[in-house]
């Protein structure tokens, strides 16, 4: 399977390279993979500097999203009042066009880290929160009754049953959030920034340094994949009971 994918993607790259050379496509329109790779190797220091900025936006944004989503989800599940008053707002937050929000964020928070983190949070907290709500709600009620019959308080029921039972759903949400978090950071940087991969793309596009644009896109894509993979890894570490092989003694 992976062999097949590898063969396919390498043949695509080869076709891309060949097409660029055969039709003599100018580099500023579409650089061949070899030129992108060359730019990547030549300017890796610059890319690393901007990558570190973008990564800190993503990292902070994801942490805030996780905390916010968990708190919201617990609140929504615990109280009908919160569910009725907050859940619609959570959904509505996804309808806000970030382009419209951009000038406001700029006015309120300037060119620094904050507006980017806000955009990342706006994009990332939603999939986590929605999955978490479903996870907390979908708990086998008899498990809850079992712990209740032991005399568990509401808080203990949450700790012993609801939260661990919701973890798989939480990780599904986090995987989606991790993959789209990069988009959030890039959009945030396009609002107005002085550093970051998104800033680099815009700055390189103006003088038609298309190979740089592609190099930055490639790095962002790799970040997305790496984040997705780390969440999957983290999930395996956290939920050994789901992955251990079933053995009949």
């Amino acid at each position, binding site marked *: 399977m992976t062999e097949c994918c590898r063969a396919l993607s390498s043949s695509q790259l080869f076709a891309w390279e060949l097409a660029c050379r055969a039709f003599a496509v100018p580099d500023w329109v579409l650089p061949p993979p070899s030129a992108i790779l060359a730019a990547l190797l030549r300017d890796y220091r610059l890319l690393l500097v901007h990558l570190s900025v973008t990564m800190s936006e993503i990292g902070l944004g994801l942490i805030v999203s996780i905390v916010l989503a968990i708190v919201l989800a617990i609140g929504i599940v615990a109280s009908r009042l919160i569910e009725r008053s907050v859940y619609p707002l959570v959904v509505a937050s996804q309808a806000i066009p970030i382009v419209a929000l951009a000038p406001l964020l700029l006015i309120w928070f300037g060119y620094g880290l904050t507006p980017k983190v806000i955009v990342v949070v706006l994009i990332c907290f939603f999939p986590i929160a929605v999955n978490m709500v479903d996870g907390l709600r979908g708990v086998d009620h008899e498990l809850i009754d*079992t712990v209740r*019959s032991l*005399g568990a308080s509401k808080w*203990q029921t949450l700790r*012993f049953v609801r939260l661990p*039972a919701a973890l798989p759903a939480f990780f599904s949400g986090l995987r989606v959030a991790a993959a789209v978090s990069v988009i959030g950071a890039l959009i945030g940087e396009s609002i107005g920034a002085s550093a970051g991969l998104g800033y680099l793309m815009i700055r390189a596009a103006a003088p038609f340094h298309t190979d740089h644009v592609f190099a930055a896109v490639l790095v962002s894509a790799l970040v997305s994949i790496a984040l997705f993979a780390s969440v999957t890894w983290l999930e395996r570490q956290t939920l050994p*009971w789901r992955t251990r092989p079933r053995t*009949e*003694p």
Partner: protein
Amino acid sequence: MSRVDTDWRLELRGVTKVFQRDQLQVHALGPLDLRVADGEFVSIIGPSGCGKSTLLDMIAGLEQPTSGEIWLDGAPAPYRLGKVAYMHQRDLLLPWRTVLENAIVPLEVKRIPRRQAIERAMPWLRRFGLAEFASRYPAQLSGGMRQRAAFLRTLPTQCPLVLLDEPFGALDALTRSSMQEWLLMLWEDLDRTVILVTHDVEEAVLLSDRVVVLSQCPGTIVADIPVDLPRPWTYAIVTDQAFVSLKARLLAALRRQPTLGVVTDDA
């Protein structure tokens, strides 16, 4: 009311349960009067839908009776959660906890530190032959072992009253009979009061001191029959004359119910 006889571990006094479902009132149970002595093993049998599980839910404190009172150890006990050990037909082990971690849940709920809880639970694991599986997850165990682990969970808290809701119903016949023998052996040196809900008449006779027969919905007690078979028995007893006639009496009591009545509640 004055304190009467503290020898009763559990007393049900005119207990009824009516469920409100939309506009419909379903009279599920009662009125029931039942007394269970300390150290007694009582089985409750009845047609399905007679409210057996509802009765256990009420004794455990998960549900409150619509009217009547439940007494524990000679005093009214309106709050019973945490005072009665309860085990279901499904093992209901927490799948994300190992066998050992599941065994200490009741102790952790009572805020006993983890290390101490493990020290208290380990002897039980050894006794139940589960020590070498302590770090396995429930999904890695066979049905019989999961059921044993679930039963184990009811013991370290020292709750004197244990409720068992068809604990062996989901097991195959062979595992079931060995689990029954094992349970009886255990009960004889544990000094617990056990209430067992089952619809297996043979199981009821084999295990109990007394068998209570419930009627169709709404469940009321139609027979309360002491079991006076010699103990310890072997499985050969199932062909013994006394055993057979007792079984016949219980079946007759069950059969007196119209079995084709409207079943409104399968709880």
